[in-house]
Protein backbone atom coordinates (compact mmCIF):
# COMPACT_ATOMS: atom_id res chain seq x y z
CA UNK A 1 0.00 0.00 0.00
CA UNK A 2 1.16 3.52 -0.79
CA UNK A 3 2.79 5.25 2.19
CA UNK A 4 0.61 8.36 1.88
CA UNK A 5 -2.54 6.29 1.90
CA UNK A 6 -1.34 4.40 4.97
CA UNK A 7 -0.64 7.67 6.74
CA UNK A 8 -4.00 9.16 5.93
CA UNK A 9 -5.82 6.02 7.08
CA UNK A 10 -3.85 6.06 10.33
CA UNK A 11 -4.54 9.73 10.97
CA UNK A 12 -8.20 9.29 10.11
CA UNK A 13 -8.53 6.43 12.59
CA UNK A 14 -6.67 8.42 15.22
CA UNK A 15 -8.74 11.58 14.81
CA UNK A 16 -12.09 9.87 14.29
CA UNK A 17 -11.76 6.54 16.03
CA UNK A 18 -14.43 3.89 15.68
CA UNK A 19 -16.57 3.27 18.78
CA UNK A 20 -14.66 5.52 21.17
CA UNK A 21 -16.48 6.04 24.45
CA UNK A 22 -17.66 3.34 26.85
CA UNK A 23 -21.29 2.58 27.64
CA UNK A 24 -23.03 1.28 30.71
CA UNK A 25 -24.05 -2.23 29.71
CA UNK A 26 -23.55 -5.33 31.84
CA UNK A 27 -23.63 -7.67 28.85
CA UNK A 28 -20.12 -6.52 27.82
CA UNK A 29 -16.83 -8.01 29.07
CA UNK A 30 -14.36 -5.30 30.13
CA UNK A 31 -10.58 -5.10 30.15
CA UNK A 32 -7.97 -2.43 30.84
CA UNK A 33 -4.77 -2.45 28.83
CA UNK A 34 -1.67 -0.45 29.55
CA UNK A 35 1.80 -0.44 28.21
CA UNK A 36 4.45 -0.87 30.89
CA UNK A 37 7.10 0.75 28.77
CA UNK A 38 5.12 3.88 27.98
CA UNK A 39 2.02 5.76 29.01
CA UNK A 40 -0.72 4.31 26.82
CA UNK A 41 -3.77 3.31 28.77
CA UNK A 42 -6.96 2.09 27.09
CA UNK A 43 -10.13 0.41 28.37
CA UNK A 44 -12.03 -1.99 26.15
CA UNK A 45 -15.48 -3.56 26.37
CA UNK A 46 -16.65 -6.35 24.13
CA UNK A 47 -19.99 -8.01 23.54
CA UNK A 48 -20.05 -11.61 22.32
CA UNK A 49 -23.30 -13.39 21.43
CA UNK A 50 -23.61 -16.93 20.01
CA UNK A 51 -19.85 -16.99 19.52
CA UNK A 52 -19.96 -13.86 17.37
CA UNK A 53 -18.34 -10.52 18.27
CA UNK A 54 -21.31 -8.14 18.23
CA UNK A 55 -19.56 -5.01 19.44
CA UNK A 56 -16.29 -3.62 20.79
CA UNK A 57 -15.90 -0.16 22.33
CA UNK A 58 -12.92 1.59 23.88
CA UNK A 59 -11.79 4.71 25.69
CA UNK A 60 -8.68 6.16 27.29
CA UNK A 61 -5.56 8.14 26.56
CA UNK A 62 -2.92 6.77 24.23
CA UNK A 63 -0.62 7.67 21.38
CA UNK A 64 -1.60 7.88 17.72
CA UNK A 65 -0.45 4.34 16.96
CA UNK A 66 -2.33 2.71 19.87
CA UNK A 67 -5.48 4.74 19.36
CA UNK A 68 -5.64 4.27 15.60
CA UNK A 69 -4.97 0.55 15.76
CA UNK A 70 -7.69 0.18 18.39
CA UNK A 71 -10.10 1.76 15.91
CA UNK A 72 -8.87 -0.39 13.02
CA UNK A 73 -9.09 -3.53 15.17
CA UNK A 74 -12.66 -2.77 16.15
CA UNK A 75 -13.69 -2.37 12.51
CA UNK A 76 -11.88 -5.58 11.60
CA UNK A 77 -13.18 -7.82 14.38
CA UNK A 78 -16.86 -6.91 14.71
CA UNK A 79 -19.00 -9.56 13.07
CA UNK A 80 -16.32 -12.25 13.23
CA UNK A 81 -16.58 -15.45 15.25
CA UNK A 82 -14.27 -15.73 18.24
CA UNK A 83 -12.12 -18.25 16.38
CA UNK A 84 -11.87 -16.10 13.26
CA UNK A 85 -10.96 -13.13 15.41
CA UNK A 86 -8.18 -15.05 17.12
CA UNK A 87 -6.76 -16.06 13.74
CA UNK A 88 -6.78 -12.44 12.59
CA UNK A 89 -5.12 -11.31 15.84
CA UNK A 90 -2.39 -13.91 15.56
CA UNK A 91 -1.74 -12.86 11.95
CA UNK A 92 -1.54 -9.24 13.03
CA UNK A 93 0.93 -10.15 15.78
CA UNK A 94 3.04 -12.05 13.27
CA UNK A 95 3.08 -9.02 10.99
CA UNK A 96 4.27 -6.74 13.80
CA UNK A 97 6.89 -9.31 14.87
CA UNK A 98 8.18 -9.72 11.29
CA UNK A 99 7.01 -13.32 10.99
CA UNK A 100 5.10 -14.90 8.10
CA UNK A 101 1.44 -13.77 7.97
CA UNK A 102 -1.62 -13.86 5.75
CA UNK A 103 -2.22 -10.28 4.71
CA UNK A 104 -5.51 -11.05 2.97
CA UNK A 105 -7.42 -11.43 6.22
CA UNK A 106 -6.08 -8.32 7.95
CA UNK A 107 -8.18 -5.69 6.19
CA UNK A 108 -7.22 -2.11 7.06
CA UNK A 109 -4.80 -3.38 9.74
CA UNK A 110 -2.30 -3.91 6.95
CA UNK A 111 -1.34 -0.24 7.30
CA UNK A 112 0.88 -1.22 10.26
CA UNK A 113 3.02 -3.58 8.16
CA UNK A 114 6.10 -1.39 8.50
CA UNK A 115 5.88 -0.58 12.19
CA UNK A 116 8.67 -3.09 12.87
CA UNK A 117 11.04 -0.44 11.49
CA UNK A 118 10.33 1.57 14.64
CA UNK A 119 10.93 -0.97 17.42
CA UNK A 120 9.84 1.48 20.12
CA UNK A 121 6.34 1.60 18.58
CA UNK A 122 5.73 -2.15 18.33
CA UNK A 123 4.16 -2.33 21.76
CA UNK A 124 1.87 0.58 20.92
CA UNK A 125 0.68 -1.28 17.84
CA UNK A 126 0.06 -4.47 19.81
CA UNK A 127 -1.58 -3.07 22.94
CA UNK A 128 -5.29 -3.10 21.90
CA UNK A 129 -4.98 -6.46 20.14
CA UNK A 130 -3.35 -8.08 23.17
CA UNK A 131 -6.18 -6.88 25.39
CA UNK A 132 -8.93 -8.28 23.20
CA UNK A 133 -6.97 -11.52 22.69
CA UNK A 134 -6.87 -12.02 26.45
CA UNK A 135 -10.67 -11.83 26.63
CA UNK A 136 -11.23 -14.07 23.61
CA UNK A 137 -8.84 -16.76 24.83
CA UNK A 138 -10.72 -16.95 28.10
CA UNK A 139 -13.99 -17.16 26.20
CA UNK A 140 -12.99 -20.16 24.15
Amino acid at each position, binding site marked *: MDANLKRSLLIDNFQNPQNKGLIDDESYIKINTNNESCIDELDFMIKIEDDIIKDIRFDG*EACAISTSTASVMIKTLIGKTVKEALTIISNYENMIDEKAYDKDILGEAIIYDEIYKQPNRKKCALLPWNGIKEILEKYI
Partner: protein
Amino acid sequence: MDIREEFPMLVNNKDLIYFDNGATTFKPKLVIDSIKDYYENYTSNAHRGDYNISLKTDMKYEGTRKKVKDFINASKPEEIIFTSGTTEGLNMLIQGFFKNYLNKDDEILLTKSEHASNLLPWFRLCEEIGCKIVYIDLDKDLKVTLDNVKKKVNSKTKVISLAHITNVVGDIRPIKEIASYAHENNILVVVDAAQSVPHIKVDVQDLDCDFLVFSGHKMCGPTGVGVLYGKYELLDKLKPYNLGGGMNASFSPEGNIELKSLPQRLEAGTPNIEGVIGLGAAIDYLSLLDMDKVHEYEVKLKEYLVKRLKENDKIIIYNENSESGILAFNVKDVFSQDTAIYLNDYNICVRAGSHCAKILKEELDIKNTCRISLYFYNTKEEIDKLVSVLKNTDMLYNQILL
Protein backbone atom coordinates in the same frame (compact mmCIF):
# COMPACT_ATOMS: atom_id res chain seq x y z
CA MET B 1 37.35 25.96 27.58
CA ASP B 2 33.79 25.44 26.47
CA ILE B 3 31.90 23.49 29.14
CA ARG B 4 30.44 21.22 26.49
CA GLU B 5 33.91 20.01 25.51
CA GLU B 6 34.26 18.49 28.97
CA PHE B 7 31.34 16.11 28.41
CA PRO B 8 32.17 13.10 26.18
CA MET B 9 28.44 12.51 25.56
CA LEU B 10 28.20 15.96 23.99
CA VAL B 11 31.48 15.64 22.10
CA ASN B 12 30.62 12.19 20.73
CA ASN B 13 27.03 13.09 19.78
CA LYS B 14 27.32 16.45 18.07
CA ASP B 15 23.71 16.50 16.85
CA LEU B 16 22.13 15.31 20.07
CA ILE B 17 19.97 17.74 22.02
CA TYR B 18 19.46 16.38 25.51
CA PHE B 19 16.61 17.96 27.44
CA ASP B 20 15.95 15.16 29.94
CA ASN B 21 18.30 16.16 32.73
CA GLY B 22 15.62 15.61 35.36
CA ALA B 23 15.93 11.91 34.52
CA THR B 24 19.71 11.76 34.49
CA THR B 25 22.64 13.96 33.51
CA PHE B 26 25.74 13.55 31.39
CA LYS B 27 29.09 13.06 33.12
CA PRO B 28 32.12 15.30 32.70
CA LYS B 29 35.33 13.55 31.73
CA LEU B 30 36.87 14.03 35.16
CA VAL B 31 34.07 11.97 36.76
CA ILE B 32 34.55 9.14 34.28
CA ASP B 33 38.33 9.33 34.71
CA SER B 34 38.07 9.16 38.50
CA ILE B 35 36.23 5.85 38.23
CA LYS B 36 38.65 4.52 35.64
CA ASP B 37 41.55 5.58 37.86
CA TYR B 38 40.13 3.61 40.80
CA TYR B 39 39.76 0.46 38.71
CA GLU B 40 43.08 0.81 36.91
CA ASN B 41 45.35 2.06 39.67
CA TYR B 42 44.13 1.38 43.19
CA THR B 43 41.28 -1.17 43.22
CA SER B 44 40.81 -2.33 46.81
CA ASN B 45 38.15 -2.41 49.49
CA ALA B 46 37.49 0.48 51.84
CA HIS B 47 37.88 0.49 55.65
CA ARG B 48 39.88 -2.73 55.74
CA GLY B 49 43.40 -2.83 54.47
CA ASP B 50 46.69 -2.13 56.11
CA TYR B 51 48.25 -1.52 52.73
CA ASN B 52 48.68 1.59 50.63
CA ILE B 53 46.10 1.13 47.90
CA SER B 54 43.39 0.35 50.45
CA LEU B 55 44.34 3.40 52.45
CA LYS B 56 44.03 5.44 49.26
CA THR B 57 40.56 3.99 48.62
CA ASP B 58 39.62 4.83 52.17
CA MET B 59 40.88 8.35 51.78
CA LYS B 60 38.92 8.86 48.54
CA TYR B 61 35.75 7.28 49.96
CA GLU B 62 35.78 9.22 53.22
CA GLY B 63 37.03 12.25 51.30
CA THR B 64 33.78 12.27 49.34
CA ARG B 65 31.85 12.21 52.60
CA LYS B 66 33.61 15.41 53.61
CA LYS B 67 32.98 16.91 50.17
CA VAL B 68 29.27 16.15 50.46
CA LYS B 69 29.22 17.60 53.96
CA ASP B 70 30.75 20.84 52.69
CA PHE B 71 28.61 20.89 49.53
CA ILE B 72 25.32 20.83 51.46
CA ASN B 73 26.81 22.41 54.61
CA ALA B 74 26.03 19.62 57.06
CA SER B 75 27.45 19.96 60.59
CA LYS B 76 29.64 16.88 60.43
CA PRO B 77 30.66 14.14 57.99
CA GLU B 78 28.91 11.51 60.15
CA GLU B 79 25.60 13.00 59.07
CA ILE B 80 26.26 11.87 55.49
CA ILE B 81 25.22 8.29 54.61
CA PHE B 82 25.88 6.85 51.15
CA THR B 83 22.92 5.09 49.58
CA SER B 84 22.13 3.76 46.12
CA GLY B 85 20.05 6.87 45.40
CA THR B 86 17.10 8.97 46.49
CA THR B 87 14.69 6.03 46.41
CA GLU B 88 16.79 3.95 48.77
CA GLY B 89 17.40 6.95 51.01
CA LEU B 90 13.66 7.55 51.45
CA ASN B 91 12.90 3.87 51.99
CA MET B 92 15.68 3.53 54.57
CA LEU B 93 14.39 6.57 56.39
CA ILE B 94 10.73 5.62 56.36
CA GLN B 95 11.24 1.97 57.31
CA GLY B 96 14.24 2.49 59.63
CA PHE B 97 13.23 5.67 61.40
CA PHE B 98 9.61 6.66 60.92
CA LYS B 99 8.25 3.16 61.45
CA ASN B 100 9.45 3.43 65.06
CA TYR B 101 8.90 7.14 65.44
CA LEU B 102 5.26 7.34 64.31
CA ASN B 103 2.22 5.91 66.04
CA LYS B 104 -1.20 4.86 64.84
CA ASP B 105 -3.29 7.84 63.64
CA ASP B 106 -0.26 10.15 63.39
CA GLU B 107 -0.41 12.28 60.26
CA ILE B 108 2.11 12.71 57.44
CA LEU B 109 1.82 15.78 55.20
CA LEU B 110 2.61 15.25 51.51
CA THR B 111 1.46 16.77 48.20
CA LYS B 112 0.03 15.22 45.08
CA SER B 113 2.99 16.42 43.04
CA GLU B 114 5.50 14.26 44.90
CA HIS B 115 7.55 11.64 43.05
CA ALA B 116 6.42 8.03 43.57
CA SER B 117 9.43 7.41 45.84
CA ASN B 118 8.16 10.02 48.29
CA LEU B 119 4.64 8.52 48.25
CA LEU B 120 4.69 4.74 47.96
CA PRO B 121 6.96 4.06 50.98
CA TRP B 122 4.60 6.25 53.06
CA PHE B 123 1.54 4.37 51.69
CA ARG B 124 3.08 1.12 52.87
CA LEU B 125 3.95 2.54 56.29
CA CYS B 126 0.33 3.62 56.73
CA GLU B 127 -0.77 0.11 55.89
CA GLU B 128 1.70 -1.32 58.41
CA ILE B 129 1.24 0.94 61.43
CA GLY B 130 -2.01 2.81 60.77
CA CYS B 131 -0.63 6.31 60.34
CA LYS B 132 -2.40 8.62 57.91
CA ILE B 133 -1.48 10.69 54.83
CA VAL B 134 -2.87 14.19 54.45
CA TYR B 135 -2.25 16.15 51.23
CA ILE B 136 -1.32 19.82 51.34
CA ASP B 137 -3.36 21.79 48.77
CA LEU B 138 -1.40 23.28 45.86
CA ASP B 139 -2.12 26.85 44.79
CA LYS B 140 -3.14 27.86 41.24
CA ASP B 141 0.49 27.70 40.08
CA LEU B 142 0.74 24.22 41.69
CA LYS B 143 3.00 25.64 44.40
CA VAL B 144 3.16 24.85 48.10
CA THR B 145 2.61 27.84 50.38
CA LEU B 146 3.21 28.04 54.12
CA ASP B 147 -0.44 29.07 54.56
CA ASN B 148 -1.63 25.89 52.87
CA VAL B 149 0.72 23.84 55.06
CA LYS B 150 -0.68 25.51 58.19
CA LYS B 151 -4.22 24.63 57.12
CA LYS B 152 -3.43 20.91 57.32
CA VAL B 153 -1.36 20.89 60.50
CA ASN B 154 -2.98 19.65 63.69
CA SER B 155 -1.84 17.98 66.90
CA LYS B 156 -1.49 14.65 65.10
CA THR B 157 0.85 15.96 62.39
CA LYS B 158 4.30 14.48 62.98
CA VAL B 159 6.16 14.80 59.68
CA ILE B 160 6.11 16.87 56.48
CA SER B 161 7.85 15.20 53.54
CA LEU B 162 8.31 17.32 50.40
CA ALA B 163 10.35 17.54 47.25
CA HIS B 164 12.55 20.63 47.37
CA ILE B 165 11.96 21.10 43.63
CA THR B 166 9.26 18.96 42.01
CA ASN B 167 10.20 16.94 38.97
CA VAL B 168 7.17 17.86 36.84
CA VAL B 169 6.30 21.43 37.79
CA GLY B 170 9.77 22.57 38.83
CA ASP B 171 8.59 24.84 41.64
CA ILE B 172 11.01 25.52 44.51
CA ARG B 173 9.27 24.87 47.83
CA PRO B 174 9.77 27.29 50.75
CA ILE B 175 11.43 24.59 52.88
CA LYS B 176 13.09 27.02 55.29
CA GLU B 177 9.79 28.68 56.24
CA ILE B 178 8.00 25.36 56.42
CA ALA B 179 10.74 23.83 58.62
CA SER B 180 10.71 26.77 60.99
CA TYR B 181 6.92 26.51 61.41
CA ALA B 182 7.08 22.70 61.62
CA HIS B 183 9.67 22.72 64.40
CA GLU B 184 7.58 25.12 66.48
CA ASN B 185 4.96 22.38 66.34
CA ASN B 186 7.27 19.41 66.93
CA ILE B 187 6.97 18.23 63.35
CA LEU B 188 9.92 16.72 61.49
CA VAL B 189 10.76 17.76 57.92
CA VAL B 190 12.03 15.39 55.21
CA VAL B 191 13.30 16.88 51.95
CA ASP B 192 13.52 14.99 48.66
CA ALA B 193 16.31 17.01 47.08
CA ALA B 194 16.83 14.87 43.97
CA GLN B 195 15.95 17.83 41.72
CA SER B 196 17.44 20.59 43.88
CA VAL B 197 20.96 19.61 44.96
CA PRO B 198 22.03 19.28 41.28
CA HIS B 199 20.65 22.72 40.39
CA ILE B 200 20.69 25.18 43.31
CA LYS B 201 22.84 25.87 46.34
CA VAL B 202 21.45 23.73 49.16
CA ASP B 203 22.42 24.46 52.76
CA VAL B 204 20.87 21.95 55.16
CA GLN B 205 21.64 24.04 58.24
CA ASP B 206 20.05 27.10 56.71
CA LEU B 207 16.98 25.12 55.59
CA ASP B 208 17.02 23.43 59.01
CA CYS B 209 15.45 20.28 57.54
CA ASP B 210 15.77 17.11 59.60
CA PHE B 211 16.51 14.72 56.73
CA LEU B 212 17.43 15.28 53.10
CA VAL B 213 18.05 12.80 50.28
CA PHE B 214 19.44 13.05 46.75
CA SER B 215 21.01 11.05 43.92
CA GLY B 216 24.44 11.26 42.34
CA HIS B 217 23.52 10.60 38.73
CA LYS B 218 21.28 13.67 38.44
CA MET B 219 24.26 15.90 39.34
CA CYS B 220 26.93 14.70 36.88
CA GLY B 221 27.84 11.72 39.06
CA PRO B 222 27.51 8.00 38.38
CA THR B 223 24.30 5.98 38.78
CA GLY B 224 23.80 3.80 41.84
CA VAL B 225 25.03 6.28 44.42
CA GLY B 226 23.14 8.81 46.50
CA VAL B 227 23.10 10.49 49.87
CA LEU B 228 20.93 10.41 52.96
CA TYR B 229 21.58 13.37 55.24
CA GLY B 230 20.10 13.52 58.74
CA LYS B 231 20.67 15.64 61.83
CA TYR B 232 23.01 13.55 63.96
CA GLU B 233 20.69 12.94 66.95
CA LEU B 234 17.91 11.80 64.60
CA LEU B 235 20.04 9.81 62.19
CA ASP B 236 21.54 8.03 65.20
CA LYS B 237 18.09 6.54 65.87
CA LEU B 238 17.71 5.13 62.35
CA LYS B 239 17.65 1.36 62.63
CA PRO B 240 19.79 -0.28 59.94
CA TYR B 241 17.91 -2.59 57.60
CA ASN B 242 21.11 -4.21 56.36
CA LEU B 243 23.23 -6.06 58.90
CA GLY B 244 26.63 -7.46 58.06
CA GLY B 245 30.24 -6.53 57.55
CA GLY B 246 31.60 -3.10 58.22
CA MET B 247 28.72 -1.98 60.43
CA ASN B 248 29.20 -4.10 63.57
CA ALA B 249 31.71 -3.38 66.32
CA SER B 250 31.52 -6.91 67.73
CA PHE B 251 29.20 -9.89 67.96
CA SER B 252 29.05 -13.11 69.92
CA PRO B 253 27.92 -16.66 69.07
CA GLU B 254 24.82 -16.05 71.23
CA GLY B 255 23.75 -13.33 68.83
CA ASN B 256 24.65 -10.25 70.81
CA ILE B 257 25.54 -7.55 68.33
CA GLU B 258 27.19 -4.29 69.07
CA LEU B 259 26.89 -1.85 66.21
CA LYS B 260 29.40 0.75 65.08
CA SER B 261 28.58 4.42 65.32
CA LEU B 262 27.49 6.61 62.41
CA PRO B 263 28.07 6.59 59.52
CA GLN B 264 29.42 3.01 59.24
CA ARG B 265 26.40 1.56 61.03
CA LEU B 266 24.17 2.41 58.09
CA GLU B 267 26.55 1.25 55.35
CA ALA B 268 26.74 -2.54 55.71
CA GLY B 269 28.72 -4.57 53.21
CA THR B 270 31.18 -3.41 50.59
CA PRO B 271 29.84 -0.05 49.47
CA ASN B 272 29.57 1.34 45.94
CA ILE B 273 33.17 2.56 46.03
CA GLU B 274 33.43 3.60 42.36
CA GLY B 275 30.12 5.44 42.72
CA VAL B 276 31.21 7.34 45.80
CA ILE B 277 34.54 8.26 44.21
CA GLY B 278 32.72 9.44 41.07
CA LEU B 279 30.30 11.47 43.18
CA GLY B 280 33.28 13.13 44.85
CA ALA B 281 34.61 14.15 41.43
CA ALA B 282 31.16 15.44 40.41
CA ILE B 283 31.01 17.61 43.53
CA ASP B 284 34.48 18.99 42.77
CA TYR B 285 33.23 19.85 39.29
CA LEU B 286 29.99 21.51 40.44
CA SER B 287 31.77 23.43 43.20
CA LEU B 288 34.11 24.93 40.62
CA LEU B 289 31.15 25.95 38.46
CA ASP B 290 29.48 27.53 41.52
CA MET B 291 25.90 26.42 42.19
CA ASP B 292 24.53 29.96 42.33
CA LYS B 293 25.81 30.56 38.81
CA VAL B 294 24.41 27.21 37.64
CA HIS B 295 20.97 28.19 38.90
CA GLU B 296 21.16 31.69 37.46
CA TYR B 297 22.09 30.30 34.03
CA GLU B 298 19.31 27.71 34.09
CA VAL B 299 16.67 30.24 35.07
CA LYS B 300 17.73 32.54 32.21
CA LEU B 301 17.68 29.62 29.80
CA LYS B 302 14.21 28.59 30.98
CA GLU B 303 12.96 32.19 30.51
CA TYR B 304 14.32 32.12 26.98
CA LEU B 305 12.66 28.76 26.36
CA VAL B 306 9.29 30.08 27.59
CA LYS B 307 9.62 33.23 25.48
CA ARG B 308 10.44 31.28 22.33
CA LEU B 309 7.79 28.60 22.86
CA LYS B 310 5.17 31.31 23.34
CA GLU B 311 5.74 32.42 19.75
CA ASN B 312 3.94 29.24 18.78
CA ASP B 313 0.24 29.33 19.66
CA LYS B 314 0.00 25.55 19.40
CA ILE B 315 2.17 25.07 22.49
CA ILE B 316 0.50 24.86 25.89
CA ILE B 317 2.86 25.58 28.80
CA TYR B 318 1.81 24.34 32.24
CA ASN B 319 4.38 25.85 34.58
CA GLU B 320 5.57 29.13 33.16
CA ASN B 321 6.11 30.62 36.62
CA SER B 322 8.34 28.00 38.21
CA GLU B 323 11.86 29.15 39.08
CA SER B 324 13.84 26.17 37.83
CA GLY B 325 14.93 24.66 34.53
CA ILE B 326 11.92 22.35 34.28
CA LEU B 327 9.18 23.04 31.74
CA ALA B 328 6.03 20.97 31.17
CA PHE B 329 4.21 21.43 27.88
CA ASN B 330 2.03 19.85 25.24
CA VAL B 331 1.32 20.54 21.60
CA LYS B 332 -2.39 21.25 21.15
CA ASP B 333 -4.34 18.10 20.22
CA VAL B 334 -1.22 15.94 20.23
CA PHE B 335 -0.60 13.11 22.68
CA SER B 336 2.58 13.88 24.65
CA GLN B 337 4.33 10.68 23.64
CA ASP B 338 3.72 11.36 19.96
CA THR B 339 5.39 14.74 20.43
CA ALA B 340 8.37 13.10 22.15
CA ILE B 341 8.74 10.55 19.38
CA TYR B 342 8.45 13.27 16.73
CA LEU B 343 11.22 15.25 18.48
CA ASN B 344 13.33 12.12 18.64
CA ASP B 345 13.35 12.10 14.83
CA TYR B 346 15.35 15.33 15.16
CA ASN B 347 17.62 13.92 17.89
CA ILE B 348 15.91 15.96 20.58
CA CYS B 349 15.41 14.04 23.84
CA VAL B 350 12.42 15.03 25.97
CA ARG B 351 10.43 12.94 28.38
CA ALA B 352 6.72 12.22 27.88
CA GLY B 353 4.41 10.85 30.50
CA SER B 354 3.31 11.42 34.03
CA HIS B 355 6.95 11.64 35.25
CA CYS B 356 6.48 9.30 38.21
CA ALA B 357 3.95 11.74 39.69
CA LYS B 358 0.87 9.78 38.74
CA ILE B 359 -1.54 11.48 41.12
CA LEU B 360 -0.63 14.97 39.99
CA LYS B 361 -3.10 14.58 37.12
CA GLU B 362 -5.89 15.34 39.57
CA GLU B 363 -4.37 18.78 40.08
CA LEU B 364 -3.20 19.49 36.54
CA ASP B 365 -6.38 18.20 34.98
CA ILE B 366 -4.21 16.68 32.33
CA LYS B 367 -2.64 13.30 32.60
CA ASN B 368 0.46 13.42 30.48
CA THR B 369 2.89 16.13 29.47
CA CYS B 370 6.20 16.53 27.69
CA ARG B 371 8.91 17.64 30.03
CA ILE B 372 12.02 19.62 29.21
CA SER B 373 14.55 19.68 32.05
CA LEU B 374 17.56 21.87 31.39
CA TYR B 375 21.08 21.76 32.77
CA PHE B 376 24.00 24.15 32.64
CA TYR B 377 25.38 22.57 29.47
CA ASN B 378 22.22 23.27 27.46
CA THR B 379 22.28 26.29 25.15
CA LYS B 380 20.04 28.86 23.48
CA GLU B 381 20.98 27.35 20.13
CA GLU B 382 19.48 24.03 21.23
CA ILE B 383 16.29 25.81 22.23
CA ASP B 384 16.18 27.56 18.84
CA LYS B 385 16.40 24.16 17.15
CA LEU B 386 13.56 22.81 19.31
CA VAL B 387 11.41 25.83 18.54
CA SER B 388 11.95 25.51 14.81
CA VAL B 389 11.16 21.78 14.86
CA LEU B 390 7.98 22.41 16.85
CA LYS B 391 6.90 24.95 14.21
CA ASN B 392 6.34 22.08 11.83
CA THR B 393 4.02 20.10 14.07
CA ASP B 394 1.41 20.06 11.31
CA MET B 395 3.78 17.47 9.90
CA LEU B 396 3.90 15.57 13.17
CA TYR B 397 1.30 12.98 12.34
CA ASN B 398 2.58 12.63 8.82
CA GLN B 399 5.88 11.42 10.16
CA ILE B 400 4.51 8.72 12.40
CA LEU B 401 4.50 6.03 9.78
CA LEU B 402 7.65 5.71 7.77
